[in-house]
């Protein structure tokens, strides 16, 4: 019997689900299970620190507290939104610009791409510590030059200033992740078909017009994908902020991830902490569906036309 026939028999006998089982088990145990457990905890008062709070059922009390009586959560939510929009927006702009530049710069492209990928390859903790030194108020090299060119007042330190600190975090994130955006968009540019570009040029379109009407629409799924990945990642940002500021000064850099950590692992309040974590999940889910729409939007229009 030929191997093709064997394959057919195996499939016909319903063995394919058997091969899927290990992956399904891993998915259920490592993703679905913990998620369901987290949601179930969010209806309880479980706390590691308070005696008597052993996971008694509370109904929606934790959710009500979050909605009505937790201004710090909402402040933190707003801070996170600011951070995500600013960081991902700038990463997209710089990433697209760099990718276009590299795409047209044929010579030395590989070397430059390798070079600019370096920040992305570093461990977040190492990045945090490196920037901590660079931005030190007394002997930080960057602080010194920023003061030298009068971009910063002499007694100001970027990580201690309530006004500057969030934007400093944005700058560090942009520095770390722009290479990733560049790489993905560059890969997208390389995979685009030549014909639409040739047709546009033959029709006499200016380079700006080609970019606007041909390059960008063709890149849309790639851009949506990279923005989705970066958006999710930025929303969960923790390491750098934890190392550099611990969420302060005040609540200036208290992103939702830091707040969630504080409730769960400083206060050991897992009941309420689960609600906060669930909200983070919900926001990421909404973000995913919005970007997924962005990816599939063009395909949908085409299918409609067909």
């Amino acid at each position, binding site marked *: 019997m030929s191997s093709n026939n064997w394959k057919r028999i195996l499939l016909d006998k319903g063995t394919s689900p058997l091969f899927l089982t290990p992956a399904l088990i891993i998915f259920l145990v490592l993703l679905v299970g913990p998620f369901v457990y987290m949601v179930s905890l969010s209806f309880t008062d479980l706390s*590691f*620190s*308070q*005696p008597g709070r052993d996971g008694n059922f509370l109904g929606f009390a934790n959710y009500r507290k979050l909605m009505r009586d937790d201004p*710090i959560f909402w402040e933190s939510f707003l801070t996170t939104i600011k951070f995500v929009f600013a960081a991902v927006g700038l990463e997209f702009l710089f990433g697209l610009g760099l990718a276009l530049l590299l795409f047209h710069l044929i010579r030395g492209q590989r070397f430059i791409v390798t070079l600019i990928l370096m920040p992305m390859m570093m461990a977040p903790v190492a990045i945090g510590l490196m920037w901590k030194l660079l931005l*030190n*108020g*007394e*002997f930080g090299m960057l602080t010194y030059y920023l003061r030298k060119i009068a971009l910063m007042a*002499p*007694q*100001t*330190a970027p*990580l*201690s200033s*309530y006004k500057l600190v969030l934007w400093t975090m944005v700058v560090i994130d942009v520095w770390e992740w722009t290479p990733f955006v560049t790489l993905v968009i560059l890969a997208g540019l390389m995979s685009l078909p030549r014909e639409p570009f040739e047709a546009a040029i033959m029709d006499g379109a200016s380079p700006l017009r080609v970019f606007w009407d041909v390059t960008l629409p063709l890149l849309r799924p790639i851009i949506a994908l990279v923005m989705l990945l970066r958006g999710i990642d930025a929303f969960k940002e923790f390491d750098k902020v934890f190392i*550099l*500021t*611990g*969420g*302060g*000064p*005040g*609540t*200036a850099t208290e992103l939702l991830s830091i707040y969630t950590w*504080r409730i769960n*692992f*400083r*206060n*050991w*309040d897992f009941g309420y902490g689960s609600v906060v974590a669930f909200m983070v999940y919900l926001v990421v889910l909404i973000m995913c569906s919005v970007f997924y729409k962005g990816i599939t939007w063009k395909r949908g229009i085409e299918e409609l036309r067909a």
Partner: protein
Amino acid sequence: MKGFTVTTNKKWFHTSTIVCGLAIMVLIVYGQAQAWDLKEAAKPYKGDTIRTIGEALPPLEALDKIKTKFTELTGIKVVVEQYAHEEAVDKVMLDLNARTGRYDFIIQPHRELGRFAENKHVVPLERFMNDPKLKDPDFHPEKELYVNLWKEISWYAGKPYGFPFTAITMFLWYRVDLVNDPKERAGFKAKFGYDLKAPQNWKEYKDMAQWFTRPDKGFYGTAIQGKRHVALWYEWLNFLYSFGGDVLEADKGYKYGPIIINSPEGIASLDYYKGLLKYSPSDTLNYDWDGAMAAMQQARIFECIMWNDATYAVEDPKQSTVAGRMGFGMVPQGKGGKVGQVEGWTYLIPRYSKHKEAAYLFIQWALKYPNQLEQHLNGGASPRPDVYAHPHVKKLTYSQAAMDTNSAALPKATFPESPQMTDIIVLALSDALAGKKSSKEALDWAALEIHKLLGDKAPLKYPVK
């Protein structure tokens, strides 16, 4: 010869009975003392390995150095895990709740004691202290330790749960070489009208901070531990207590009481504390204890309020550029008198420990005078007053300040909600330092949040509008 009868020799008989009784008692006590021997007591546990965890600082490093002597004596191996402050606390919390019994004894800050004791994660020590097989008759904690400190950091609701690992307080660090510099003295006197010396009160502390602030030379009067971190709370408590304020009106750490954090004294202390920002390095709001200590070790500040278990590091020429040029004293005096805040790390035995008895033997051994002396001289902060009387310890420049503060240190909350209360206060202080809120707004907010956390157990003494 007249026959011996009780009646005829009544006096002699009584005397000899008393003498014999006393002799028997002495023999029993002496015999017991002789009978108890660590090696014998540890025999059943020979070959066991006991594991502990604590903060990676000189006191624990010193314990790590002397532990081999215990192993040589008893055959019990001791493993000491050292982590940064918060990591050491988190790991213990997870281990206790997971009930794995990884640690046979733990060394933890006493602010955590309430939640360990109330959740029955740790066992009271009475059963070991009263067990003749384990109790060293030569060890008398009630006489040999700072009793107030022991009761504050290792007792909860009237029961002993542990023994102090360290007697840690915060006190004044200043540059004595600058105080003695004739040029500085003359300049200071001309400006402020009194002699430059170790600051005794908060006015002098601020005057000196102002005098030594020279940003063009990268030198500042002081540094505050302004990062949003537990260090901020610890440091500010010194100011709060010294200004005559407190967080709650309660005489014991495990007791609740009216909230007084937003009292006029509390607000004044925070106003003063904020006022020190202008005499501190520009990134002082990103300093925890390590940041402030590094600023002193690098000779970038004149004075600060710092921990006594870090003094060893600032006086070590291998780690510090100012070793031998430092002065130490009690926290400057305010309306609340000469006070300090005590924060001991305490030995505790988890309920899930698999080698409780061996752990108790080690703790008891570690607290004996020769071991405490050795640990102290290697960077410890002994809870035994007799250690501070040793000539070698007396020679340490910070011994007097440590002793003075130990005897005047005020307690802090240890009930189970205390870490959450601390978190609230840290945020309020950080908001105030960042300029987001005034001192009153920040402390009023903290008072309300603490009231929400503790409910009727802690009413507001100073109502918030």
